[in-house]
């Protein structure tokens, strides 16, 4: 029998894109990281005939985001880890245990994989109460242990009072919590989340994610979180893996992958061409804004006021770390210093390069921090722009998006805490 390890090139797969986040080659993956997936599958029939998937990634414990447009292969990847979808070739390894290996003819049954899966539609059993849903995966345990564990998890996800209700009788957020509790109560070795929070408002989402993080602080299991929302990537992920047409086009920490995208697709997916680490310099409660200093450097931006969940009573303090994102298309460029504007952020800088492509011009401007600005070729010509020229950038306060700091940001500060 073949040794239960398979190198990517043995499958005829291209090695991971050298331009993306450096990834350990398979030879260095012994022993397994928390989760490693190497898989290839071609769909001949069904919902997506002709679609083929070819992926390789390894992730540590903690939240990893699978990010990409619909039909990119994210959900299929979760299915492969869970054992619902069988790869044509490949190897899936979870916490030192081989779940699937085509070369060694290993395919552990779905029911024995110890995965927690929260489906996109949650898939709560409509004929069972919340409590019975949560206890569903505990059949193998003695009754007192079942009751104890279910009680504990219901308590920690704040749904203990709903135990006797049917799924149809509780709110969307409560259903999400029930689904999470049902998956986590079995103490899975990996948690798979398929856009589980996409239907929720930001505040509810933030609180559920906090509970999830708290739960995982002791467990330290890998969590794969599928989303196509850019905001969620920055709000949640320690890592992001970008899916594109069945392949992985980039992976790494969100700010590296999406903040300095090396491919145009990733940049488009990211939407934020300009992402900066920053710290809060001053808070203007009355104006509803705060001033952030971009790091490193002295450039200051005025951004909308947001509260930080951990300090919700006291508001944001100076010195708090945040991240600011600005879309290249949201920035105005002027060749003279503008006057009489409502915009609070006017930055002086030097045009360093111009790059024309597909009726778009990307201008790079150094203002003490490097900005990318999107222009039309027409505008570029009529302003007679050339590298080295002095320019002014104009940013509206509300074009500056706060992304993530060391705590969760709540976008709607008016919403009361439950």
């Amino acid at each position, binding site marked *: 029998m073949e040794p239960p390890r398979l190198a990517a090139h043995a499958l005829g797969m291209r090695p991971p894109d050298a331009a993306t986040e450096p990834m350990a080659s398979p030879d260095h993956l012994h022993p397994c990281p928390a989760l490693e997936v190497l898989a290839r599958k071609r769909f001949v029939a069904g919902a997506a005939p002709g679609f083929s998937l070819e992926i390789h990634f390894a992730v540590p414990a903690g939240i990893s985001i699978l990010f990409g447009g619909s039909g990119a292969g994210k959900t299929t990847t979760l299915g492969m880890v*869970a*054992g*619902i979808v069988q790869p044509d070739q490949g190897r899936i390894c979870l916490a030192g245990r081989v779940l699937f290996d085509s070369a060694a003819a290993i395919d552990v049954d*779905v*029911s*024995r*994989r110890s*995965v*927690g*899966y929260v*489906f996109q*539609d949650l*898939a709560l*059993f*409509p*004929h*069972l*109460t919340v409590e*019975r849903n949560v206890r*569903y*995966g505990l*059949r*193998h345990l003695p009754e007192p242990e079942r009751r104890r564990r279910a009680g504990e998890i219901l308590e920690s996800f704040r749904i203990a009072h709903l135990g006797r209700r*049917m799924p*149809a*009788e509780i709110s969307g957020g409560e259903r999400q919590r029930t689904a999470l509790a*049902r*998956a986590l109560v*079995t103490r899975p070795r990996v948690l798979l989340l398929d856009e589980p929070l996409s239907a929720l408002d930001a505040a509810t989402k933030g609180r559920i994610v906090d509970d999830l993080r708290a739960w995982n602080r002791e467990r330290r299991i890998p969590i794969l979180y599928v989303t196509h929302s850019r905001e969620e990537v920055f709000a949640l992920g320690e890592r992001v893996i970008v899916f594109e047409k069945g392949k992985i086009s980039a992976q790494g920490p969100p700010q590296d992958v999406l903040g300095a995208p090396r491919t145009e697709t990733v940049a488009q997916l990211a939407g934020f061409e300009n992402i900066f680490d920053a710290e809060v310099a001053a808070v203007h409660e009355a104006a509803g804004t705060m001033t952030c200093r971009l790091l490193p450097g002295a450039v200051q931006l005025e951004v909308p006021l947001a509260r930080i969940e951990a300090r919700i009573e006291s508001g944001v303090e100076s010195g708090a770390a945040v991240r600011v994102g600005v879309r290249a298309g949201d920035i105005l460029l002027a060749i003279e210093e503008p006057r009489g504007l409502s915009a609070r952020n006017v930055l002086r800088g030097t045009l360093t390069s111009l790059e024309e492509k597909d009726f778009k011009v990307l201008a790079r401007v150094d203002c003490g921090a490097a900005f990318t600005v999107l222009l039309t070729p027409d505008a570029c010509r009529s302003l007679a722009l050339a590298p080295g020229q002095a320019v002014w950038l104009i940013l509206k306060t509300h074009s500056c998006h706060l992304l993530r700091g060391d705590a969760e940001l709540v976008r709607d500060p008016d919403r009361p805490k439950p």
Partner: protein
Amino acid sequence: MNWQALLLTLRLSLVTASALLLIALPIAYWIAYSPRRWKFLAQAATALPLVMPPTVLGFYVLVAFGSSSPLGRLYQHWTGHTLAFTFEGLVVGSILYSMPFAVQPLVNSFLAVDPQLIQASRVLGASRLSTFFRVVLPLSISGVATAVALTFAHTFGEFGVVLMVGGDIPGLTRTISIDVFDKVEAGSYAAANSTSLVLLAVSFVILALVYAWNRRAWPRTPWA
């Protein structure tokens, strides 16, 4: 009114409906979930009694379990008599005859169960069998009720198969429909009429109950 025939028919319908449910569940499960491409053949085979004249079906049962067939000899060896002209013979014939009425509603209701619920159950550590009993079956309860009621009603009014394999023995194989037939043949139209009315009334009540049941909205009935 021939009460003996009525009781016999009720008994036959009850036995057939419960036995057929046990037989149809695995068949319907297989048809609904098997990945095999040729399962449509099995589906067509179970639907055959819909188009086959019941007398033809009864004749095949007669031949298949007669003493000239291996199956019939085996049965005779076990039980000491042939299957024809016995209550069991009627049950076997009725089961074959009502097969599509049990299998089809079950297949439909199994297919109506959200596949994600089945996957969710499997991911939570349940085996296929356990998933069937804990998720698929409770969610298919209206299909099960339809299957049982249709089988019951169909057997209750069954004629051709019973005529072929029954041998018209009072109290044993003379069902209510055969009794009506005998009365018409003998020219006792009034007696045939009164018996037919009972047959009609019972069938209507059963079907009305099925449709009343199926109108009930799902989430209001916590089953487990």
